[in-house]
């Protein structure tokens, strides 16, 4: 523990020495230098460990007063107070930050709906045929759950209790198991709807919708990188990730299925046969019909999805924008999910299963929409308005048909059971997330509205899964209040602080100093990201975004860097900070629930390869900004 003290003291000393070097002698001191002093002081003060919101508020008040005092002593107090209260009111009346408590509430509700156990089980059964399936299922579970709940500590702890023992029992290496849990658990920082992106949006004035649209693919890319690496590793070194034993893979079949499966393994054939052939009179027909209905859901969903895309694509020109865009996203979703680490069948089904409700509702509406102008227009115009579908549509259709065919070719009774389990765990969550995200990205709802509906959906989930009770609601409510108060009071403090900093002209000095360095945009981006990464050691990401981001932001215009793009880089970067020793929070959460003989060092070592993947992801995003910017530009045309 002594080491930590010296580390902290050394960093503090560095800042103080830096300040001395940068400061001119007192007689040459200007207000701007005071601003810099303020910045140095705040770093030191935060390190001292006093609640940051009040450190900022106190320092901000004093320096603001000083700035006004040096201009006109008689009105200094009045101006300072006015500025303070305006800053506080700005936070209270902020239509971006209002979604913070709503998303946090949704997170606590989903966390307490206790879906994670079923989710993990159904996912690992569904993926049991790929190498390293348990670790892959862990990452996917983490990604989905972290996405819905966003509470890193809780996700890592839960997975540490659930997936970590399962992997160790199956003979997985400790490092791989630890790495999968910690890396997967921190995905919630990046994958929308994340609170980090809301805070960045509020600070940078970038629309949260665009940030969410932008972070979607980088998040999926990172998760796919993890999964790909796990699969390759498991292939190369099967001893560290042995395949599941037959016993673990076995799925309990209900009695009637066992009877039916004697005649053949395909579920659809078997079920149909039992209805048509009346071979199994002892099985109630209603059960058979219900199961047949369930097994036909994917096909139905595929038909609805492709049909509505077709209608959207070929719709008359005027009616195009909304339909095509929304449907285009759905198609993309599905495509990426299908690619997502070879989870072909179940994932495929997920993309398809989700729409029935939404598409079924939308499709008739769209038909009506088209029919209306067609009917209203003169008869000869009607056939001309329908455009031929583009090439990509037929390709997508072909792929879709092929995957449905593959899906049904291997659709045994065992898989039907797994599919039923997924219906009960994976799809409700996926529906919730895609509903929230989809409505934001497609521009149907503001983030606030989507967050409120997400919270409502969380409540419904908790009720449906029998976890809803007064105690659970109370806990979620109180935790939400505390987390929101923590974040928003930090905003109040930093608002006052930033005002003082700007008044003293500190920002100007930073600006002129950085511009005088004559950096290229690339150098600046690198420098900024390195600083942010280093800040991620002593500070929490909330503090970095709220306090330090405003200092970088004015410089972005000078270097002509898109604040949206910069935000995505920052989000990826801060996620890396969560995994970097010695302060990687994720490791400590896992250590808290791991068996005594799993050392912190083993966990750190397990995280390392995943950290490398994160750096690779940052690099990829920088080299190919389209990964992040394509979706926003597609949806918002910007």
């Amino acid at each position, binding site marked *: 523990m002594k080491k930590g003290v010296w580390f902290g003291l050394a960093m503090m000393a560095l800042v103080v020495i830096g300040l001395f070097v940068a400061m001119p002698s007192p007689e040459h001191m200007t207000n701007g230098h005071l601003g810099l002093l303020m910045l140095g002081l705040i770093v030191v003060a935060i390190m*001292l460990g006093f609640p940051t919101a009040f450190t900022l508020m106190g320092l901000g008040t004093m320096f603001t007063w000083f700035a006004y005092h040096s201009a006109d002593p008689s009105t200094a107090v009045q101006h300072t107070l006015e500025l303070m*209260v305006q800053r506080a009111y700005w936070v209270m009346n902020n239509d971006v930050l209002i979604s913070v408590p709503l998303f946090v509430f949704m997170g606590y509700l989903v966390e307490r709906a206790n879906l*994670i156990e079923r989710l993990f089980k159904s996912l690992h059964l569904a993926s049991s045929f790929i190498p390293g399936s348990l670790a892959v299922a862990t990452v996917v579970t983490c990604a989905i759950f972290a996405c819905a709940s966003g*509470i890193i500590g809780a996700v890592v702890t839960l997975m540490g209790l659930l997936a970590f023992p399962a992997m160790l029992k199956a003979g997985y290496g400790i490092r791989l198991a630890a790495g999968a849990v910690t890396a997967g658990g921190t995905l919630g920082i990046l994958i929308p709807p994340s609170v980090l992106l809301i805070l960045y949006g509020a600070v940078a004035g970038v629309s949260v919708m665009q940030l969410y649209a932008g972070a979607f693919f980088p998040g999926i890319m990172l998760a796919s990188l993890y999964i790909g690496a796990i699969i390759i590793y498991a292939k190369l070194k099967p001893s560290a990730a042995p395949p599941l034993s037959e016993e673990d893979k076995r799925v309990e079949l209900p009695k009637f299925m066992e009877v039916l499966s004697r005649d053949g393994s395909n579920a659809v054939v078997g079920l149909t046969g039992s209805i048509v052939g009346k071979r199994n009179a002892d099985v109630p027909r209603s059960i058979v019909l219900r199961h047949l209905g369930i097994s036909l859901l994917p096909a139905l969903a595929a038909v609805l999805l492709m049909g509505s895309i077709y209608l959207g694509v070929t719709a008359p020109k005027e009616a195009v924008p909304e339909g095509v865009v929304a449907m285009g996203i759905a198609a993309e979703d599905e495509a990426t999910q299908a690619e997502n680490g070879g989870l072909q069948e179940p994932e495929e089904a997920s993309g398809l299963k989700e729409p029935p409700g939404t598409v079924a509702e939308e499709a008739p509406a769209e038909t009506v929409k088209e029919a209306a102008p067609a009917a209203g227009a003169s008869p000869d115009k009607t056939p001309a308005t329908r455009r031929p579908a583009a090439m990509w549509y037929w390709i997508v259709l072909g792929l879709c048909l092929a995957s449905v065919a593959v899906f049904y070719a291997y659709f045994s009774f065992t898989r039907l059971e797994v599919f039923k389990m997924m219906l009960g765990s994976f799809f409700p969550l996926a529906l919730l997330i895609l509903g929230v995200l989809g409505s934001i990205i497609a521009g149907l709802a503001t983030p606030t509205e989507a967050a409120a509906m997400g919270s409502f959906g969380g409540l419904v989930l908790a009720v449906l899964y029998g976890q809803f009770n007064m105690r659970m609601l109370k806990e979620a409510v109180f935790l939400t209040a505390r987390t*929101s108060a*923590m974040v928003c009071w930090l905003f109040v403090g930093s608002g006052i602080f930033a005002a003082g900093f700007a008044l003293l002209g500190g920002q100007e000095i930073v600006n002129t100093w950085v511009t005088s360095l004559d950096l290229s945009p690339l150098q600046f981006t690198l420098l900024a990201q390195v600083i942010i990464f280093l800040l991620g050691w002593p500070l929490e990401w909330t503090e970095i975004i709220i306090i330090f981001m405003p200092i970088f932001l004015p410089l972005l215009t000078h270097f002509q860097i898109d604040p949206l793009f910069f935000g995505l880089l920052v989000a990826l970067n801060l996620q890396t900070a969560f995994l970097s020793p010695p302060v990687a929070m994720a490791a400590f959460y896992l250590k808290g629930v791991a068996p005594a003989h799993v050392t912190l060092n083993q966990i750190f070592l397990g995280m390392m390869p995943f950290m490398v993947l994160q750096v690779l992801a940052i690099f990829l995003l920088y080299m190919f900004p389209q990964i992040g910017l394509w979706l926003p530009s597609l949806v918002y045309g910007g």
Partner: protein
Amino acid sequence: MFERSNMQKSLLIIDKISTFVGKTFSWLIVSLTLLITYEIFSRYALDEPHPWAFDVTLMMYGALFMMAGAYTLSRNGHVRGDVLYGFFPPRAQAALDLTLYFVFFLPGVVALCWAGYIYAGDSWRILEHSSITAEGPPIYPFKTVIPVAGGFLLIQGIVEMIRCVICLKEGKWPSREEDVEEVDVEKLKELLHVKDEDIAKLDEIITAREKDHK
């Protein structure tokens, strides 16, 4: 000794007041969720949007987090930069905290209360209405939240300072009331039906396997 336990009691009473106020306002998150959900339903399904809804949701959010500030402080829930702090012995922590309460907390929060008092007073004088939408709802009660929340925060801050003094005297932090934790390991274990024995058993598996490797 007697004096101290009285002191403890009065600290806990103030904690309880902050907690009560904070928890009461916490419930706004539920009404916020329901109101927005209903408003969406009303707008799209009933075609009947309410112009006041926007203002009202903002007020609920603002009041929620402002009034929960003191409650959060009473649970030590405001984020701290934890580079050095966690390594210090309790007495050093208390001395540091006490100093910084004087240097940062008191000036900042007193100024906020004062500023809020003037601000809300101005609003009451003209019985201000929101100008975000036409014929917006009155906002003077909302602006009053600033000085009130600041006041509660100030009182709770003074309690925290007394806690520091007690800690300086006794060398350990006085106890706080129990409350829900964000990551409550015991509760999560219960949720997943994991017992400590299971983890111990797992430990044996690992150690056995590591022996095999050697």
